[in-house]
Each structure stands twice: as structure tokens, then as C-alpha cells.
């Protein structure tokens, strides 16, 4: 791999994107028809990119592992989408959204990317309205906003608690239109298992049809990965069970640099785990923190029921530690504060893994009906899962892995270090730095897919030398061979332990040593344990059935095999970063009152890791220059 070239345009921040778009080469309409693009994944980023590329005239081959593109995990985002519309006239602007995102990311993201994100945020809302997304409205008919996730303005647009669902269904409907027009060919129930590189350029993928088991090659002029994040490496997370690292990990093994894998967001408000059977954790929307107050008993020996504990004996720990932001402190800060009080033995509920999220005050002040209107569906969900009525007793919550800021390294054009391989949405690393603010993932997914990639990929297609290649090109045949070998290997181990057992063990290991807080000893021991677990996996995993049929265990085992390799990369990155920033908290680097100590002198860079067969990955650094927002200590106190 050569030097990391971020290709950030020069000049004033405000006009970088406009000037860049003007200087980019275009593909003429006649030539677009001759070009094809593969898009893998149909979440917000993938569906919006595939539909827009189809509309522009490219031929798009679009893949997803679900039975329908409408089921990607973007659908589960609850809270909302940010945009610098300043409809509330409360002092918001593109500049402020940019500033909040840079600061929220703890100065580990690129200024130029984040500014562009803030700029296109307003177009996203307009586009979504045009697509018929039923955003919440005021009585006068205007779009409603709320304040969300650690910011002081109301810039979040929402559709009840189902914003992700509505935005995804909008992008999916746009995709449906392009499928109907013949511009997009959809391949549902298909999983990417390898990439095809020809002359160093990404030219296709190898996929497995999850119904028939057929392994086949698909070639195109460029490949776009929109395959989401890797929170499920922790086994328990708020992600859907199918979310996996396979596509981005395979790309990494083909030379695409992986950036900042240790920046993994732990969301503060999930329902605490209930037992060993637990298959996933359920997120309670962050919007609950607008009205709910977090607290634990002041002393660990206080075993009274929450209603019997008078205010004087309660510790509203976020309000105490962060008086300016209180219960709305950003995710990383809130999660860690929860961990601190639980580690002190003051946690509540089974195993002491939980804190109260209390609505009694807002119910008293504003009435039960107001709370029901705002959060009714979340209270219902909580009741179904725990059997408790949160209108009567406080909710219990505990942090859970939720989102990964790390991802494949991309330049300003969203292209990875492999030419022709573009990466969008959560799968790339670009915009959130070391911590993502609430309601920003939907914004980034749609910004990449609707408004950024469709421009930047055009320049690549217009300027790269791309000969047409058949689906049975030698490189494609070789890639198919690799996939078949691996599938057969999984099926022939015939061991005694299931893939889920290995996954759970790996997850526990990572949660303990590379979770909410990390230290050198823990990371070093994890790096020793992971290879052993991986060896055991390949010696003792049990995958029934055959590769040439519908086989859910085979799909799952393949994903777990990739987690078992990827986990090592995650720990390497966490070990090398001798500082605490954003979601990455190294216990060795904290102030006396437990606040993180960032080290801009040594670590103001993007850590981009390069794969080496059988050896420790190589670190490449992309220095981060802050020309417009001087880094400050991120204080929410």
C-alpha cells in the first residue's frame, strides 16, 4: 500500500465541496449506460446509493443478505436525523453542526468531510420529504424538531420512534422504482464472500446464494460496500443478528486499509442483559434522556425499592458530574459514567448491571399523557421485555455496543485504498471520529448514498482505465475457488461446539478487555487468547448440512470465523492508542477525577491498518490537521 492520500481539496472549508464537484470529471450519459456498479448492502447508504446511481443511468447490481432490501438494520434506528435547517431559529447553522460533530468526535475526524456532511444535511431532509417520508409536523404544517443526543439546539427530524424505518422505506421505495425501470438488478438472499481484484482494481464480488448455495462471480466497473458496522463482534449488541464484518474484513484482506477499529460506540441506554440465553440487547432510544433522569442509590448497601429511596439518598450522577449537559451528556461519557457507578457496586437490578432511568418527575410535571405520547412505544417495548411498567417504576438501563465509528479507510471521495472499491455509511470510518453524536448515523448514511458517492464515483469511472472483463475472468475463477475451499473447510471440521458458543466466548472476552474501558494488560491477554480461540474454532466447530442448500448455520459460522480474525485487529488498534479519546477509554490515560486524557501531540491521526498474511498488521498514519476548529479538551462539565 502506498501513502494514504486523503485527497482533501485545498481552499476555504465552506467552498471545498463545491469546487471539488466542479473540478471532478463527469461521465457522459451515453457512457453511463455502458458502466455497471456493484452495491453491496441495502441499508440507508446502500439503498440510496443504488437508487441514485440507477437514476443517473449506470447499471447497478445490488446485493443484500435479507429476503428483501427493506430489512437492513438502518430500519431499527429510532431517534431521528440531524440537519442544519435552523427551522427553530435557535442558533443552528451548518457551521454549528460541523463544530458539534467535530467536537463530539473528540477531534479524531476530518474537518473537510464533516463540513461537507453538515452542508448536505439540509438537502437530505428536502429529498426525504419529496420521497413522502411522514416526518413529524407541527399543527401549522411545518416540520417538527427535537433536541437529541448531547447538543444544545433542536435540529433532529423524526418520525415517532421509527425514523430509521421511515427513511429506509423511503430509500427502498426509490430503489424499487429503479428496479422497475431495469436500472437496478436486485439480488436478495445473497451474501458477499470475496472480492475480485483485476490489476489492483476492485472489479467484482463472489457471492453465495443463500437459498441454493450457489457460489458465483459478478463483475462490474466499480464496487461499493455499504455493509454496516461490526458491533456484533461483541456477540451481544443492539445490532440485528445478521449484521457482520465479513464484507469489510474480506476487503481488508485484499489490501483496503482498516481505520480506527477501536472506536466502537457503547450506547448508554439499552435494556440490561437477562441471562445466558440472551441473543441481543434491545436499545431504548436516547430521546428518553430528554425527560428521564439517571440515578443510582448513593450507597451500595441501599437495597430499598426505587420508590422508597428519598431524593436525598439518590445520586443523579450525570447531573452531578456534568451539570451543564446533565442527562444529555454524549453517549461515550454517559456510558462510562454508568460503568463507574456500577463498578462501585451501586448498580441496580440482577447482577448490579443497571442504573435507573426515572420519569416520575416529568410525569408529575407534565402529566402521564404527554409522556405516553412522546415515548409510548418505548415504554410498551420495555414492558414486554422486562414485565415492568415504567410509568410506575423507573426503567433500568445498561450500556451496550451499538455503532462502530471505525471502518474501512476512505479518502474524501469515499474510495478505499483499493482503487474502485468505495465504502459508504457505517462501513467506512470517515465522519464521526472517536464518537458519534445521536441522530448522525442516518444523516451520514444518506449523505454518502444520495449526495456524495454518486458524484465522486463518476470521476473515478471517467478517469480510470477499465477494460471490460467477463464473469469467468481468471481472477474471478480464483476467487470462486477460494470461497468454495473455505465453505468446504467449515463443513468438514465436524466438531462438537456450535458457532454460537465460539461467538459468545469471543464476545465476552472482548467486552471484558476491549469494551467500555481498556488497559494494556487486558488487551495483551486478549491478543493471546483470540488466536487460541480461533484455532479451537477451526478444530472443533460443528456446521451441519451441506453447502449447496439453505444452511443458516453455515452462514453464521462463516461470519463468526471472520469475527475471530477481526477481533485481533480491534485489540491491536486499542493497544497502540496510548490515549483516551471518545469511545476509546484507556484506563492508564485519565485525569484524577476519571475524565479521559487525550494526547493530540502523539495521536491526532487516523490509524489505518494494512493486512499482512500471518503477521501483525502494519500501521499507517493519516495526520489530522485542525485548521478551522482548534482542538480543545472536550469538557461537558
Amino acid at each position, binding site marked *: 500500500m502506498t501513502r494514504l492520500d486523503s485527497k482533501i481539496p485545498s481552499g476555504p472549508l465552506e467552498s471545498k465541496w463545491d469546487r471539488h464537484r466542479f473540478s471532478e470529471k463527469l461521465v457522459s450519459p451515453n457512457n453511463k449506460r455502458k458502466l455497471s456498479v456493484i452495491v453491496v448492502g441495502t441499508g440507508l447508504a446502500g439503498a440510496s446509493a443504488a437508487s441514485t446511481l440507477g437514476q443517473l443511468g449506470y447499471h447497478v447490481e445490488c446485493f443484500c443478505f435479507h429476503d428483501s432490501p427493506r430489512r437492513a438494520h438502518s430500519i431499527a434506528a429510532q431517534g431521528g436525523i440531524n440537519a442544519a435547517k435552523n427551522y427553530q431559529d435557535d442558533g443552528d447553522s451548518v457551521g454549528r453542526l460541523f463544530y458539534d460533530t467535530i467536537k463530539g468526535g473528540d477531534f479524531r475526524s476530518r474537518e473537510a468531510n464533516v463540513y461537507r456532511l453538515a452542508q448536505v444535511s439540509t438537502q437530505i431532509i428536502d429529498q426525504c420529504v419529496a420521497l413522502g417520508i411522514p416526518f413529524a409536523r407541527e399543527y401549522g404544517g411545518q*416540520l417538527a424538531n427535537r433536541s437529541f443526543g448531547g447538543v444544545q439546539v433542536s435540529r433532529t427530524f423524526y418520525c415517532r420512534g421509527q425514523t430509521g424505518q421511515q427513511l429506509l422505506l423511503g430509500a427502498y421505495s426509490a430503489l424499487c422504482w429503479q428496479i422497475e425501470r431495469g436500472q437496478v438488478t436486485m439480488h436478495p438472499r445473497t451474501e458477499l464472500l470475496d472480492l475480485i481484484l483485476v490489476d489492483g482494481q476492485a472489479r467484482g464480488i463472489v457471492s453465495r446464494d443463500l437459498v441454493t448455495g450457489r457460489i458465483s462471480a459478478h463483475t462490474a466497473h466499480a464496487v461499493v460496500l455499504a455493509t454496516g458496522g461490526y458491533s456484533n463482534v461483541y456477540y451481544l449488541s443492539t445490532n440485528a*443478528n445478521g449484521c457482520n464484518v465479513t464484507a469489510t474484513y474480506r476487503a481488508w484482506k485484499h489490501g483496503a486499509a482498516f481505520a480506527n477499529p477501536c472506536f466502537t460506540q457503547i450506547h448508554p441506554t439499552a435494556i440490561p442483559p437477562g441471562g445466558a440465553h440472551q441473543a441481543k440487547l434491545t436499545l431504548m432510544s436516547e430521546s428518553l434522556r430528554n425527560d428521564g433522569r439517571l440515578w443510582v442509590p448513593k450507597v451500595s448497601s441501599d437495597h430499598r425499592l426505587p420508590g422508597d429511596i428519598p431524593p436525598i439518598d439518590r445520586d443523579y450522577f450525570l447531573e452531578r458530574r456534568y451539570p451543564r449537559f446533565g442527562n444529555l451528556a454524549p453517549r461515550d461519557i454517559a456510558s462510562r459514567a454508568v460503568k463507574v457507578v456500577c463498578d462501585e457496586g451501586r448498580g441496580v437490578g440482577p447482577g448490579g448491571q443497571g442504573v435507573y432511568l426515572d420519569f416520575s418527575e416529568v410525569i408529575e410535571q407534565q402529566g402521564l399523557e404527554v409522556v405516553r405520547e412522546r415515548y409510548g412505544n418505548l415504554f410498551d417495548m420495555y414492558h414486554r421485555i422486562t414485565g415492568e411498567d415504567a410509568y410506575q417504576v423507573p426503567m433500568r438501563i445498561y450500556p451496550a455496543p451499538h455503532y462502530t465509528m471505525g471502518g474501512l479507510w476512505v479518502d474524501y471521495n469515499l474510495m478505499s485504498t483499493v482503487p474502485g472499491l468505495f465504502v459508504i455509511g457505517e462501513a467506512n470510518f470517515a465522519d464521526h471520529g472517536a464518537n458519534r453524536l445521536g441522530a448522525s448515523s442516518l444523516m451520514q448514511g444518506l449523505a454518502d448514498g444520495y449526495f456524495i458517492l454518486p458524484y465522486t464515483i463518476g470521476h473515478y469511472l471517467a478517469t480510470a482505465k477499465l477494460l471490460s472483463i467477463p464473469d469467468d475472468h481468471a481472477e474471478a475463477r480464483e476467487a470462486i475457488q477460494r470461497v468454495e475451499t473455505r465453505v468446504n473447510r467449515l463443513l468438514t471440521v465436524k466438531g462438537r461446539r456450535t458457532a454460537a458458543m465460539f461467538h459468545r466466548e469471543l464476545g465476552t472476552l472482548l467486552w471484558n478487555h476491549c469494551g467500555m474501558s481498556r488497559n494494556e494488560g487486558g488487551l495483551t491477554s486478549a491478543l493471546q487468547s483470540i488466536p487460541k480461540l480461533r484455532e479451537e474454532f477451526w478444530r472443533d466447530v460443528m456446521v451441519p*448440512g451441506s453447502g449447496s442448500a*439453505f444452511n443458516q448455520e453455515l452462514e453464521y459460522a462463516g461470519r463468526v470465523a471472520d469475527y475471530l480474525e477481526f477481533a485481533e485487529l480491534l485489540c491491536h488498534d486499542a493497544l497502540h492508542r496510548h490515549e483516551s479519546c471518545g469511545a476509546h477509554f484507556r484506563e492508564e490515560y485519565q485525569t484524577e477525577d476519571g475524565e479521559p486524557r487525550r494526547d493530540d501531540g502523539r495521536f491526532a491521526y487516523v490509524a489505518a491498518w494494512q493486512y499482512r498474511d500471518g503477521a501483525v498488521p502494519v500501521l499507517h498514519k493519516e495526520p489530522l490537521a485542525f485548521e478551522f476548529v482548534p482542538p480543545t479538551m472536550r469538557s461537558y462539565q
Partner: protein
Amino acid sequence: MKFTLNIWRQNGPHERGRFITYEAQDVSPGMSFLEMLDGVNQRLLGNGEEPVAFEQDCREGICGSCSLVINGIPHGPDQGITTCQLYMRRFSDGAFITIEPWRAKAFPILKDLVVDRSALDRIMQAGGYISVNTGGAVDGNVILIGKDQAETAMDAASCIGCGACVAACKNASAMLFVAAKVSHLATLPQGRPERARRVSAMLEAMDREGFGSCGNQYECEAVCPKNISTRFIANLNHEYLRAGIVESSLPSEPESPHAESS
């Protein structure tokens, strides 16, 4: 808790299926229904048997993947939830539970409890969208939409496309699914220009895919995990009737609405 499960097993679309009985042991009341099935599958794997195939993903009731008929009712005994949101405390210890796939001509069984619901996607492709290009949209606040109108559109738009309405209907009709999408878009000003073409195209696609027609018995509404109301079916009928009147004033042989100069 312990349960006796009667589960439909079927190897492939063209093979004969049958019920097989399994025991579910060591179940706790706080387990979800799918976690209970995970436990059964882990035990089957331990005995070298093939696990029961069933579809699931988000496990929080929004992706629409899960799809089980539990004791004869799609998504089980409780209203307004999906199977993944059903918890074992809802069943009494020792109960006998029958688990089947969605059954409808338009949803062929792929394996065990997994069915092919792509027919719903094809209905959507026939017209379940607003034909608007990316870019150049007017400011979101230029189109004023009253709160009540937005809420009605959102009620309809909540559909998760799981297909329970089809599984519950004795005619295997997809009317509630189509009604939800048609009503969502017809309620909003942005969806008005195409409303006549949309409703006709989607209903034609529904017939083509082999779904039946509405039996007016409201089973669909009773099992819908998002409580989508059958009044949207009334709205669908209204839209269809309206389209008939509007279309009679359109050119007699309209070109394909999506034809391009390709």
C-alpha cells in the same frame, strides 16, 4: 419452564413437510420466543441434527423478518407485536405449542419455517414509490402538511412488510399491505400526482402474484404487529374507485409511466 413444540419441518420448496415434536427445556419466563427456539436449535446441533430454519434479524419488532404462526395465529397470541417480541412468560408451563410457517400460495416455503415473501417486493416495485429523482427537491417546509394528516400517513407507513396479514387471511389477500402503502402516499401531497396509477399498478401486481381478494373479516388487522387499521382498506377501495374515474379521462393507451428513452 418446559414446553412441547410441534414444529413444521420441510426440506425444500418441492418436498413434503410434516410436523415433528420437540421438547423445550430449561426455559425461563424472561426468554423471548425466538431465544427459546435458539435453545432448541443449540440442542439439536449438539445431537448432530439439523436445526429448525426460521427467519429473524433485528429482534425488536421492526425489520419484519420473523414470521411464525404460533398456535394458529401469526406472530402468536398477543396483539400488536411480532414473534420476536413475544416472551415465554405469556405461556403457561408445560404448554403444547404448534409452530408453522406463513401459509399462502404467494409465499412458497423455502425451508422449515422460512417462506419466500418476494411477492411483496414486486408489488412495491409496481408502484409503491414517488417517482422523484435525487437532488433538486424543494425546501421541506414548502410543502405544509397538517399534523393530523402526517400522523395518518405515519400510521399507514408503519407497515413492516412481514406478511402476517396475508398469513391470517383465508383468501391469503395482501389487501392490508397494499392499503397501507397506497394510503401512506395518497394521504401526502407529494404522493398525489401518481395516486391513480399507483393504486392500479399495485393492485394488478397483487393479483398477478397470486394473492386473494379481501374477505372483509378483519383477521389481517387483528394480527398486524403494527396495528394497521382496516380503514386503510376502505381508503384503498376509495382510491381504486377514484382511479377508475380519473383513468377514464387519461389517454386510452398510456405508455408505461416509467418508460425512458432507452
